[in-house]
């Protein structure tokens, strides 16, 4: 039966004719999932994984191991036999710590009983927030280049994702005017991520105030992913939720992966108006039940005693950022100063290569991995993302190799012109 199916492609076209014992997988995948593009990062990862000797600047997570005191808290919880489910919303003691932390770091006060939901990372929070808010066809404005999951998450919630470009001329910072221009009837959500992965762009208070006014005028809900908030190097991080009239319409998303170096714990949270938290909780309770208790226990320790570790790691990233950005500019790769996150996003336009060819050739010829900017949306064209979340020694070696590569391209270009 199987052979017949394989050898006769015409037969395959109509699955109704396929004998009962043969499945046609194509017909079992939902159309909106079939149409979803694979992440560009995934393709690139497949190549890099074959080259273990390469220096990778492609890692989107801290190079620090989770501070020991936080790991130890999780081990202690395990020793105590804390292996059960928790409240769907998360441990109340954790929600109280989150409330305290948000009040001191972000500004707004959240009720730990009704306005906070502990999730499995910020990614889950984005997913269930969009599924809670969007009806089919509702539109979501989001800025690009951006984290890889935003547009697919909107699609999976049957919404329409409308990209709003951020510009290299403005260091990829928030551009409220671009949002205003992009607005169209049917827009329901503003999805923000400042500091931004992959550009390191940030949002200053004045621009956030203008955007807040726009959100109020157009009656939009704001989903603000502020996962890199602690890793802000210039000035203080400002949350849009802290602006007058915005707490009521903003879902503030945060987590422990980046600032506290806890990516593998998969723990995050959403803070927002009780009606939205309640709606998100409905989905969360059915699809996830609760975040893992050991991660929740670790998160409590992180918030109680881990903030000094965060500051230490931020200082290290800060120094490495200054080094990497200076080196890229010395090499001739024009690179703005990322004001937050741990990514540099240099332009590779001067090399004459597109971002994909640049990344592939750099990897194959000099064994350095960076991520093509278009993996983060079409507006990442002519750029690559380079994580500076790695040791000085690797950064020095990687940028030296990139210099050799760019110089060799210059020579190639000059020789071509001479010919």
């Amino acid at each position, binding site marked *: 039966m199987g052979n017949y199916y394989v050898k006769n492609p015409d037969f395959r076209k109509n699955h109704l004719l396929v004998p009962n014992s043969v499945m046609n997988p194509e017909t079992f995948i939902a159309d909106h999932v079939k149409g979803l593009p694979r*992440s560009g*990062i995934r393709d*690139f*990862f497949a190549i*890099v*994984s074959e080259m*273990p000797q*390469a220096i*990778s600047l*492609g*890692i*989107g*997570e801290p190079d620090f191991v989770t501070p020991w005191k936080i790991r130890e808290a999780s081990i202690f919880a395990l020793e105590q036999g804390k292996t059960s489910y928790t409240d769907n919303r998360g441990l109340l003691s954790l929600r109280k710590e989150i409330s305290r932390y948000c009040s001191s770091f972000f500004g707004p006060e959240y009720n730990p009983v009704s306005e906070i939901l502990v999730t499995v990372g910020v990614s889950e929070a984005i997913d269930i927030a969009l599924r809670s808010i969007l009806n089919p066809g509702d539109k979501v404005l989001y800025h690009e280049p951006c*984290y*890889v*999951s935003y547009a697919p998450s909107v699609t999976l919630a049957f919404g329409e994702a409308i990209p709003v470009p951020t510009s290299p001329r403005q260091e990829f910072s928030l551009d409220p005017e671009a949002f205003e221009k992009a607005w169209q009837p049917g827009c329901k959500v503003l999805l923000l991520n400042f500091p931004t*992965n992959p550009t390191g762009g940030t949002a200053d208070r004045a621009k956030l105030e203008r955007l807040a006014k726009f959100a109020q005028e157009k009656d939009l809900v704001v989903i603000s992913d502020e996962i890199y908030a602690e890793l802000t190097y210039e000035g203080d991080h400002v949350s849009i939720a802290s602006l007058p009239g915005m707490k009521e319409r903003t879902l503030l998303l945060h987590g422990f992966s980046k600032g506290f170096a806890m990516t593998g714990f998969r723990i995050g949270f959403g803070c927002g108006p009780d009606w939205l938290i309640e709606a998100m909780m409905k989905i969360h309770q059915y699809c996830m039940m609760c975040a893992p208790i050991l991660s929740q226990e670790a998160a409590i320790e992180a918030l109680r005693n881990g903030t000094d570790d965060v500051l230490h790691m931020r200082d*290290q990233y800060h*120094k490495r950022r*200054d*080094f990497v950005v*200076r*080196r890229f500019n010395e090499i001739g790769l024009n690179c703005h100063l990322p004001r937050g996150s741990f990514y540099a996003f240099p332009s590779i336009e001067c090399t004459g290569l597109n971002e994909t060819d640049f990344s592939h050739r750099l990897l194959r010829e000099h064994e350095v*991995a960076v*991520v093509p900017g278009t993996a983060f949306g079409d507006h990442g064209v002519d750029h690559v993302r380079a994580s500076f979340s790695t*040791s*000085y*020694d690797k950064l*020095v070696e990687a940028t030296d190799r990139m210099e050799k590569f760019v110089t060799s391209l210059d020579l190639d270009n000059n020789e071509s012109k001479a010919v």
Partner: protein
Amino acid sequence: MSELLSVLQETADPRPERLAKILGCSPQDVESELEELRKNKTLLGWMPLLNPMHCNSDQVRAVIEVKISPEREGGFDRMALRISKFEEVESCYLMSGGYDLLVFVTGKNLKSVASFISERLATIQGVLSTATHFLLRPYKDHGQLLCEESGFQEKPSVSP
């Protein structure tokens, strides 16, 4: 702490050219700052950080709690300095608590360490008592874990 010292503590390659690249200055600037740090005794020298478990050495290390008599002028300083000058002494600290000096001693074998303590250290006038503990196995030294951790080999080399 200066930027140079901060970078020095992080990198495994202390060549001035390399440090200059990281700091964005000339190698001459690095050389002159290093010279200044040496002059004012901030930077005392370079020492490789070795893992004794891998050094194939039979050296014996001991920690000795020493009680001494403070002196009218100078307190513990003269005695501490005198003890520190023995080449067997790796390090010596004035402590609060039940004893005065904590002395780390290294010898080529048990006999040589025992002999140093009983014949030279304990016999110094002013040393009231010693309590010796031999180090069995190191786990962490100068901030470095010395035991092999399995590490995590499956961490992706590219991630979003």
